[in-house]
């Protein structure tokens, strides 16, 4: 039997960030991770730290993170997480593209985000490497990117230094409910008691939540990314396209990290591990070259796949569970959890210390899912 004030299931960026902020408050924290630190989407995503393109329900969280947390994160964690606040370009080649971008821009502007449509000349001034076929873009100057692997490991490293106990290679099996409260988690090794329990285990959160009769409607969606060998420094913005051909950025290392999809790679037969598919990387490369012909000779050194825990309504569940006091859930981030992870870590810290979060998250409750008719 083990005991701590808070028990976190899941050693991804959400679990590590939350462990860090809780331990900074002086709480004793244990983190149980089935595989290794940052095994899932935390190490596999494209590194976007975006506000633009976000659903209004989670946009305030992203804006809070960009305004208050990301700029000082490397200093706070004493490690360079390679954060760049150099803007996000969402590119258009056709009028139809422009129309899509205009819609996104209008919605974000209404919520107070500084994002606007720009013409071909301004796009070229921001990024001279783009193809002449680009006719315009949406531009959010406060967006950016960071290194997701380093961010996750930086939170982990600092949390560990602050005394958080991390155990990897141990699988949580079920939540123990006593007198109506969640009091412990049984693993394949021991039982861990805690006053507060956070389930932040991605798609697999449902396996654990089932033991207390909870279910978050989400699917596993496969997505791929690739990385080039290091290239000379070219640009610092985060990039995307109206049609989502690809997204990505150039890293501090000089390599380009791009994510994308062939459109049919969600249909896989291997659900044991996220595997890449033969047609996806070529598809992403064609997408990139359509916008960056200059990158045609860059060598791809690695491709990888990762699962997105895609929520039925495309925004996460970040919530205390009313029916099971002591239990908190953070999952179903739908592929855009990394950029908001520092803020989510703080929100969860508030939720588990009975404080009001600095951003209203009522729209992200676990019990919001209703039948359509």
């Amino acid at each position, binding site marked *: 039997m083990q005991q701590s004030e808070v028990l976190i299931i899941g050693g991804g960026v959400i679990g590590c960030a939350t462990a860090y902020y809780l331990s900074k408050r002086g709480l004793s924290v244990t983190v149980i991770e089935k*595989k*290794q*630190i*940052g095994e899932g989407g935390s*190490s596999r995503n494209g590194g976007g730290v975006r506000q633009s393109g976000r659903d209004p329900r989670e946009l305030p969280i992203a804006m809070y993170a960009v305004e208050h947390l990301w700029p000082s994160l490397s200093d706070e964690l004493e490690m360079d997480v390679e954060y760049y606040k150099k803007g996000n370009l969402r590119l258009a080649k056709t009028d139809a593209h422009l129309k899509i971008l205009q819609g996104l821009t209008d919605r974000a502007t209404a919520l107070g985000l500084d994002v606007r449509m720009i013409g071909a000349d301004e796009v070229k001034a921001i990024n001279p490497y783009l193809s002449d076929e680009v006719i315009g873009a949406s531009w959010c100057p406060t967006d950016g990117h960071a290194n997701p*692997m*380093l961010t996750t*490991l930086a939170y*982990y*490293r600092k949390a*560990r230094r602050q005394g958080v*106990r*991390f*155990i*990897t*290679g*141990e699988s949580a099996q079920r939540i123990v409910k006593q007198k109506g409260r969640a009091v412990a988690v049984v693993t394949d*090794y021991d039982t861990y008691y805690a006053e507060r329990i956070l389930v932040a285990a991605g798609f697999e959160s449902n396996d654990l939540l089932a033991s207390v009769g909870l279910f978050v409607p989400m699917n596993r969606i496969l997505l791929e990314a690739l990385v*080039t*060998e290091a290239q000379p420094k070219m640009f610092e913005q985060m990039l995307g396209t109206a049609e989502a051909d690809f997204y990505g950025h150039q890293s501090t*290392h000089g390599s380009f990290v791009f994510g994308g999809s062939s459109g*049919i790679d969600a249909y896989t037969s291997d659900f044991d591990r996220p595997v*890449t*598919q*033969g*047609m996806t*990387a*070529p*598809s992403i*490369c*064609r997408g*990139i*070259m359509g916008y960056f012909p200059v*990158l*045609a*000779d*860059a*060598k*791809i*050194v*690695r*491709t*990888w796949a990762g699962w997105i825990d895609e929520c039925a309504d495309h925004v996460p569940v970040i919530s205390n569970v009313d029916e099971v006091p002591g239990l908190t859930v953070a999952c179903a981030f739908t592929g855009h959890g990394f950029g908001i992870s520092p803020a989510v870590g703080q929100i969860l810290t508030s939720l588990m210390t009975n404080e009001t979060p600095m951003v209203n998250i009522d729209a992200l409750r676990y019990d919001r899912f209703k039948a359509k008719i």
Partner: protein
Amino acid sequence: MNGRIDRSIDLGPYVAAPDDGMIICRCEEVTKGEIRRAVHDGMFTITEIRRYLRTGMGLCQGQTCARLVKQIVAKELDVSPDVLEDAVARAPFRPVPMRVLANEAEGRTR
């Protein structure tokens, strides 16, 4: 997957060694000292070391240094190298220029 590891185990203090400056991963120019330091920073698996330092993430994808890194990490953790799981192998097995990967000679069907 490497088995159960309690990340709070005491590795003792990090003691600098005379050969800490030796390059181990040639592609990404990572030294022995950086790898040893990473273990003390809590990076206990080969994959975490890779993500932390970029060892084995260069052009050769670790074909040269994987064995060497494993030996260093194992020694620092005081375990046998055999218990440390290798990093996942990822396509392409050789670097491929983007224009080549983009140029599929056969039909794009599954």
